[in-house]
Structure formats: structure tokens, C-alpha cells
């Protein structure tokens, strides 16, 4: 592998990792702050991607589609929290798993009813459709760089929101002591609803901007969900910093697992077993630090 290819793959890995971060950060916030395990989180990624596809055809513009899609998914998130999720705060994780698994089936099947089961491509917006030439034979698409940049900006905004604003203070306080925050006159229910909606919006947004790169297909939500679980386990539950570290790590490992060729005793180990690399990484982290890289001791 020459340097050019290597750099391109690093960029790809980081871009994939940053995208995973958007999904995983919502997941980890909802765990950390609300104590809810939400299996349906991946479904919002899928819903986002399908909305980007169908709305961009309708409006003729991906930007309008993203704008309308984010508004729509935030509404869905608020409605879900209000109707179902808030019934789960004091219940065992088992019921959270079950209810949100039921939601996966509902969302996946609604997707099939509304949009069918075909795979669709989404066009890259015109002014981002160019590529940057690196060498005579290698070029890098601007759209992927744009994805990375947007994800980074969102990550910084999220950091500022949580660490530097009044709302962020309530969120952090709610995570450590729900009753105390309530007795100080803060509507913790509202804070939870906002956090859940924020998580939903981030996942859906990730699906939308990923659509032109990864295409839009059935089952895409579960795939992302499970990888994001791995990210959260590696980074440490409830830690946004951990989600970032885990996501970049997984992005790079997954990307290089698919292109590196490794042979052991005549067997082609990689890329044959590329799908397993991220899980092996997780197993290693479990051996080393079961609570995750940035997690609190269990």
C-alpha cells in the first residue's frame, strides 16, 4: 500500500468514525442521562436516510430534504418519548430492550410499507460533487470531506452545549441526581425529552448525510445500531468523549480490516474476517478495561 492509498483510507476511516460518533453520542447520552437502553436508535438512522432519499426527490434538493427531515424526526422523537419512553424510566432494562425491539420491528415494517424494500442511491449535491486530485491516479471526493467537517462542527457544538450552557448544566445535573434536580424546581421530564429528541435528531441527521455515500437500504439501521453498541462499550457508557474515541477507532479498524491482506498458515484471515475485527477489538477492550476507555469503574 503506497502513501496515497494509505492517506485516503485514513480519511475514509475517520469519516466513517465521525458518522458513527453522531449516532453513538445520542445513544450514550440517552444511556448516561436517562438510564435508557434504546435499541430503536438505529432505526432513526434508517428513517433519516430514507427521508433524505424520498424528500430530496420531492423537493429536488438534499438541503431542503435534510432541513425538513430533521424537523420531522425531532417531532417523532418527542412524540415517542412522550408516549412510550417515559414509561420506562423506572423499569428494568429488560423491558426497555423489549419495548424498543418492538419499535424496531414497527419502524422496519413501516419503512417497507411506505418506501418498499429496494436499495436506492441518493445524488451528491452539485457543489460538493467534485473530487480533489491527490496524484495522477488518486482523487478524494469533496463530499466525504464535507461529512467529516460537519460532524466535527456538531461534535464541538455538542461539547459547548453540555459544558457551557445552562441547559447543559441541567443535563449533567440530571444525570447524577434526578430527584435533587427536580426538587430545585427544574422540569427534569422536559430535559429528558429534549435529550431524547436531540439523540434522535443526531442519528437521523447522520443517516441523511450518509445516504449519498452508503446508499439507502433495508436493515441499515440495525447494522449501525450494533456497531454503535461496540463503540459505546469501547468508549465507556455515558461518556461523549469515549464515544468519539471509540467511533474513530472503530472507523479506522473497520476500514483497514477490509483492505489489508493478512494470511496466517495459508488461510486468508483478512479481508475474509473483516466483519469480525471490530468485535475482536471490543473483546480486547473488555479484557483490558471492562468499563470502557473513558468509563467509570463498574
Amino acid at each position: 500500500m503506497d502513501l496515497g492509498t494509505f492517506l485516503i483510507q485514513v480519511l475514509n476511516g475517520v469519516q466513517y468514525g465521525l458518522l458513527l460518533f453522531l449516532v453513538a453520542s445520542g445513544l450514550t447520552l440517552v444511556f448516561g442521562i436517562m438510564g435508557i437502553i434504546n435499541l430503536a436508535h438505529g432505526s432513526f438512522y434508517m428513517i433519516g436516510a430514507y427521508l433524505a432519499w424520498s424528500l430530496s426527490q420531492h423537493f429536488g434538493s438534499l438541503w431542503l430534504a435534510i432541513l425538513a427531515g430533521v424537523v420531522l424526526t425531532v417531532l417523532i422523537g418527542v412524540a415517542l418519548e412522550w408516549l412510550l419512553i417515559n414509561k420506562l424510566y423506572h423499569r428494568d432494562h429488560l423491558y426497555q430492550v423489549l419495548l424498543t425491539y418492538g419499535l424496531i420491528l414497527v419502524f422496519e415494517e413501516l419503512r417497507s410499507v411506505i418506501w418498499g424494500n429496494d436499495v436506492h442511491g441518493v445524488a451528491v449535491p452539485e457543489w460538493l460533487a467534485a473530487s480533489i486530485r491527490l496524484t495522477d491516479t488518486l482523487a478524494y471526493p469533496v463530499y466525504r470531506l464535507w461529512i467529516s467537517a460537519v460532524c466535527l462542527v456538531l461534535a464541538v457544538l455538542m461539547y459547548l452545549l453540555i459544558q457551557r450552557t445552562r441547559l447543559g448544566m441541567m443535563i449533567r445535573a440530571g444525570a447524577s441526581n434526578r430527584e435533587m434536580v427536580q426538587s430545585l424546581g427544574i422540569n427534569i421530564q422536559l430535559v429528558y425529552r429534549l435529550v431524547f429528541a436531540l439523540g434522535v435528531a443526531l442519528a437521523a441527521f447522520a443517516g441523511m448525510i450518509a445516504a449519498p455515500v452508503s446508499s439507502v437500504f433495508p436493515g441499515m439501521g440495525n447494522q449501525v445500531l450494533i456497531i454503535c453498541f461496540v463503540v459505546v462499550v469501547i468508549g465507556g457508557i455515558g461518556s461523549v468523549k469515549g464515544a468519539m474515541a471509540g467511533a474513530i477507532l472503530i472507523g479506522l479498524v473497520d476500514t483497514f480490516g477490509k483492505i489489508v491482506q493478512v494470511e496466517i498458515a495459508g488461510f486468508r484471515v483478512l479481508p475474509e474476517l473483516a466483519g469480525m475485527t471490530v468485535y475482536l477489538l471490543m473483546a480486547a477492550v473488555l479484557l483490558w478495561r471492562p468499563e470502557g476507555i473513558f468509563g467509570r469503574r463498574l
Partner: protein
Amino acid sequence: MAGARVRLAVLGVLALALAALPFLADKFYVQLATKILILAIFAMSLDLLVGYTGLVSLGHAAFFGFAGYLLALVSPQYEAANLWTSLAIALAGSAVLALVIGALVLRTSGIYFIMVTLAFGEMLFHLFHDTSIAGGSDGIYVYVRPVGTIFGWQPFDFEDFTHFYLVVLVAALGVYALLRMVLASPFGRVIVGIRVNEHRMRSLGYHTFRYKLVCFVLAGTLAGLAGYLAAVQFGVVNPDMLGFHVSASALMMLILGGMGTLVGPAIGAAVMMTLELLFQKITDHWLLPMGVFIVLVALLLPRGLVGLVTGARAKDDSRG
């Protein structure tokens, strides 16, 4: 102790009724009942983890599918495998897998445990889905069902659906009896103690990790038995057998029937299979009503169907 005697009597009547089924119903229903019993074994094995030890595993299908794959891999292509050796390999294989995975996942607890078990299930899925070890995403066929002879005598023929049904019935009753025995033993009291308060058990001097690991291996092995039987029945194994949906629907059977009761998960398996058939008859998009049903059960029926019947009594000895 009167409760135990009543339970034994009810179970005896139920077992007799089930044994009479092939003589009363036609092939379709016998095969459906076989499938339900296999899933009942699977769900009961998960109940040992979730309902009794308090370990919510979302990757239990890994052992179910792995044992099925082992049968497919050791079967000669166009001849019958030996039932005893292939079963022993499948059970030993899922036990070893459960030992390895258990040693890793039991380092975590709570939400972590749920996610990590799910992830290891997916790892197995990728192992069989992405590689050519066993037919990749298409899976692998078991063309001829295994034959079990005892010194040349062949007590049953798996190609006969009635025989197979009766063997599965005996296996299900055997698993039930085994788990009851385990739970009644001192070991069983310890694992229930772990669910209720692990810290207290540890300060009493119990090495709780070892107890949990033994539980995990036993549950994984029994899930392997179910997976082996499923592979025999359907004659095919594919990566979906290891996947997330199989694990999640087993959890659903637990909750629906009533976890921590052993009988509940078996009832849950029967109700789920029946509902699945019913919904499939009504619509192609049967997962939609199924999803809504699951959401409603999670919200409204925390103690399951058994909990509805036994009411307050189940409340006392289920979730501590």
C-alpha cells in the same frame, strides 16, 4: 410442598396430552408443535440466565445457531450423521463457546452486559456470514437427518415426523426436569441470591463470577441442544439463526410467558409461534402487528401470562 405436588400432577397431565398429539392431529400441527417445543427448550435455557440469575443476554442465539452449524459441518453430505457423536460435538462445542464468551461478557453487568452479548452474537453471525466456512450467507443444508442406534438397534427414525416429535418432547421434558433440579439445589439458591443481591452473596463468601459462568455455560449448552434439534427439523442452517432477531424473540417469549417460571417461557414460545402464523395469514407485513404486540406486552404485562394467572404469588418469588 403441596404446590410442588400440584405442579407435578399438572405437568404429568400436560405431558400425556402432548404425547397423544400425533395420534390426534395431522402432520402440520405435529410439526408446528415440534418447532414450539424446540423453541421452548431455547427459551427455558434463556430463563435460567434472565429470570433466575438476572443476566439479560441479547446474544443467546449464538449458541443456538452454533450448535446447528456444528451438526451441518460434521454431517457427511449425502449420508446420515451419527446422532450420538454429532450431538455430543454440538453440545460440547456450544459449551466451549459459552465458556469463552461468558468469561468475557461476565466482566460487565447491567446495560453493558446487554450490549456486549448482542455484539458477540453479531460476531458469530459475521463469522458464518462473511466466510466460506459453511456456505456464507446462504447457509448450509443437512440433507439427511442423523441416525441414532444403540448397539445396532434403532429406537427411532428422525425422518418420521411423529418419532422426531416424541424425541423432542422427551428432550423438552428432560430439560425442564434438569433445570428444576439445578434450581432446587444449593447452586440454584446461590444464583437466585446473585440476582437479588450480588454484593451480599459476594460478602457471604461466594465467588459469584464462577457461579454466573457455570450458569452461562449451562444455558449456552441447552440452547445448543435446541439449535441442534432445530437444524435436524429444518434441514438447513443459515447465519440468521445466530442473529439478533432470534435472540430478541427468545427474550420476548420469556416476558410474554412470565420469566423466572420455566413454564412461562415455554408457554410464551407457543403463543409467539401461534401469533406469528396468525399475523402471517392476515398480512405480508406481519412484523408490524408483531412489533405493536411486543411494545404492548412490555408496557402492560411485566409479569407475563403466568403472572396473570398466579397473580400475587408470582410477585413474591419473581423479581426479588
